[in-house]
């Protein structure tokens, strides 16, 4: 077992970070949010040039055949830079297509996902629903070799700039995934106003949308669960990046901010918050990358490992964000200061793909159900 980044990984991290430093500064993020766009075209091109979109796609299809660990590295840097754009959602869809798609759909979509010409997102959650395969109610009916989809999805990231939406639905009582063109008749997108100022989310109505038979991926519940797990781990990585940045901002600030004639960083209460943040960051790093490796390896405990990562990261990074704000005092309370953008990102990540109590419950279920009766 080895937690050191290899040379390629270290390089990926460095070039991603430095590219994002230039192309996704907080000022960029703010102006993108004001413009109402999901994605910055320049950043999108840059990301495809750097190979982000092809990372998890096999070399046969024009990708680089890397793994979730590399995607986590990118996700972490995107979080650290508050970056917008369907990079991770497209990669998730790529993973789904590569694993569960027919040869036809793989040949059609994977090269375009890899080169960034096809952007995609995953529609899983529903209003008043949960981030689990079992809670999906969007319905699919087979008809004349096609399918008719009906239902409503929420919190679908970057749907407004996606060329394809992978929709989780129920087909004859079993889970199913369909690749839907957002331009299809019956698809209505509504951009949501959310806590997150740096990413876009949509509510989508599917009103008896006809989907071609070839757009269905062959999945069972465990396949969808695998996607949920991957998404949870990538979300942990996003919040890890944002959390680390919040911690750095806080460390920098408390060294210079003076109150009571001394730097506030000299107060023990502030020091102890910094150490707590460090535990949160180190724990999230360990759990996130371990889960990514475990999913990559197809370990039998991979789903549990993903749940550990999300259960820990959601709570730890949200708490860290609160401590960062508390340590900054008034200055961090202003809209102008970037702190709240990170806090909002982290708080949104907390919800996406299941919050801490949901994953605590799931972990307990996995531990208890796996257990031989005594």
């Amino acid at each position, binding site marked *: 077992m080895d937690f050191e980044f290899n040379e390629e990984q270290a390089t990926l991290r460095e070039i991603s970070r430095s590219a994002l430093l230039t192309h996704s500064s907080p000022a960029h993020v703010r102006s993108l949010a004001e413009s109402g766009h999901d994605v910055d075209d320049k950043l999108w091109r840059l990301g495809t040039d750097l190979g982000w979109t092809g990372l998890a796609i096999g070399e046969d299809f024009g990708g680089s055949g890397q793994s979730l660990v590399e995607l986590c590295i990118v996700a972490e840097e995107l979080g650290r830079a508050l970056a917008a754009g369907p990079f991770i959602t497209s990669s998730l869809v790529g993973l789904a297509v590569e694993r569960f798609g027919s040869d036809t759909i793989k040949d059609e979509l994977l090269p375009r996902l890899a080169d960034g010409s096809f952007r995609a997102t995953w529609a899983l959650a529903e209003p008043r629903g949960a981030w*689990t395969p079992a809670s999906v109610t969007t319905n699919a009916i087979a008809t004349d070799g096609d399918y008719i989809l009906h239902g409503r999805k929420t919190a679908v990231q970057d749907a407004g700039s996606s060329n394809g939406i992978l929709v989780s639905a129920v087909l004859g009582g079993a889970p199913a995934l369909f690749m839907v063109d957002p331009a299809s008749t019956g698809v209505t997108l509504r951009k949501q*106003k959310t806590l997150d100022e740096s990413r876009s989310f949509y509510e989508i109505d599917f009103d008896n949308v006809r989907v071609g038979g070839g757009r269905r991926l062959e999945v069972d519940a465990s396949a969808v669960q695998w996607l949920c797990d991957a998404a949870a781990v990538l979300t942990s990585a996003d919040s890890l990046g944002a959390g680390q940045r919040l911690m750095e901002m806080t460390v920098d600030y408390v060294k210079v901010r003076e109150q009571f*004639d001394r730097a506030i960083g000299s107060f023990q209460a502030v020091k102890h918050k910094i150490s707590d943040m460090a535990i949160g960051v180190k724990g999230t790093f360990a759990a996130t990358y371990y889960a990514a490796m475990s999913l990559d390896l197809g370990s039998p405990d991979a789903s549990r490992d993903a749940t550990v990562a999300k259960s820990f990261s959601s709570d730890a990074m949200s708490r860290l964000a*609160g401590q960062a704000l508390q340590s900054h005092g008034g200055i961090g*309370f202003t809209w102008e200061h970037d702190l709240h953008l990170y806090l909002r990102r982290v*708080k949104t990540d907390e919800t996406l793909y299941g919050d801490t109590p*949901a994953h605590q419950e799931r972990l307990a279920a996995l531990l208890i159900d796996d257990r031989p009766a005594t």
Partner: protein
Amino acid sequence: MRLDISPELEAFRHEVRTFVAQSAPGSRPHAGVRAPHAEQVPAIRAWIAALFEAGYLGMSWPEEFGGQADPVPEHAFIVAEELARARAWEQIGAGSLGANALIEFGTDAQKQHLLPRIRSGQDLWCQLFSEPGAGSDLAGLQTRARLDGDEYVVDGQKVWTTNGQHADIGYLLARTDPTVSKHRGITAFAIDMRTPGVDIRPLREITGTSDFNEVFLDSVRIPADRVIGEVNDGWRVANSSLGHERSGVAARGAELFAMLDDLLDFAQDATFVGRPALRDSGVRQRIGKVATDIHVTDLMSKVVQSRMVHGTEDAADAPLVKIFYSEVNHAAAELGVSLQGVDGLAVEGDENAVANGWWQDAFMYARALTIAGGANEVLRTVVAERSYGLPREPR
């Protein structure tokens, strides 16, 4: 020790509740201490006047300025509680604080001129204490006032000025003697906010709203007769007037109970991992924890009110209620957002937002209450030192 409340106080509460229900101009749309929109201000001025007129504010003022001969100390608590319960506008700004200062330290002329204008709603006050460089360490303020003839000339910058944009009078602290230790050499003023050189700029906060202001003071001239109390005695003036702000503690419980009530309302429709949330005992226990802490905040506040009536409160009482209240408020707001699950991402203005995003706003705003008025860390230190005698840190 007695739980029962006298019929007179019950009747008074009923009277206030009816009055608020019938006469209050709308209710506050957001959690916390917030500024109204400009168009609401005239109605709020009238509402303040009505509260004074009804004997619900200023009961302990001198009789000649409209106070009562023998004010019932509980009345102020009841009024604060009923306003909070109804989420009605209270006396916005620093009018109460300013009145405290004038009554204790003001000249007759100041009182004659300014107190009636507070009563009538004609003057809204704001507090010009905090500065960018002096947050919880208020005494570190840098704004300077120097005497020039019979006027003071003030230069500096204030921040976190709630209702600064609506205020007529500012209750200002400025340094008049920089040569002495920092707690001395501060003077209190009542400054006309329309004086040339006063520049009020709204701040936008992390809530997306503008409830606070920055106030820049550039060669602002204040007549010397607007000094409140003695020159260089402003630290004592400010602390004393803050110390008289006792009814605030009463609103804590009512505010939190209103939150709990709303939370239980929408929780009936909420789900947790796809099940009805209120049937999940994990959710129930999280609600039970917050509900416990809300009840205890209210009861701690009731103990402090009782002690204030008897004059037996200790210095730790009010700060500890403030600390606990602000942390429970944060936890309650966080729980509210969490119980909304995936729908909890939606904020004010989104058509599907629960309670039009009230909870998300309350969650973001909650940190104002753990930071402002002395960050909780500072208050915890102060309580341990002053009330429990722990040694100060070496400097």
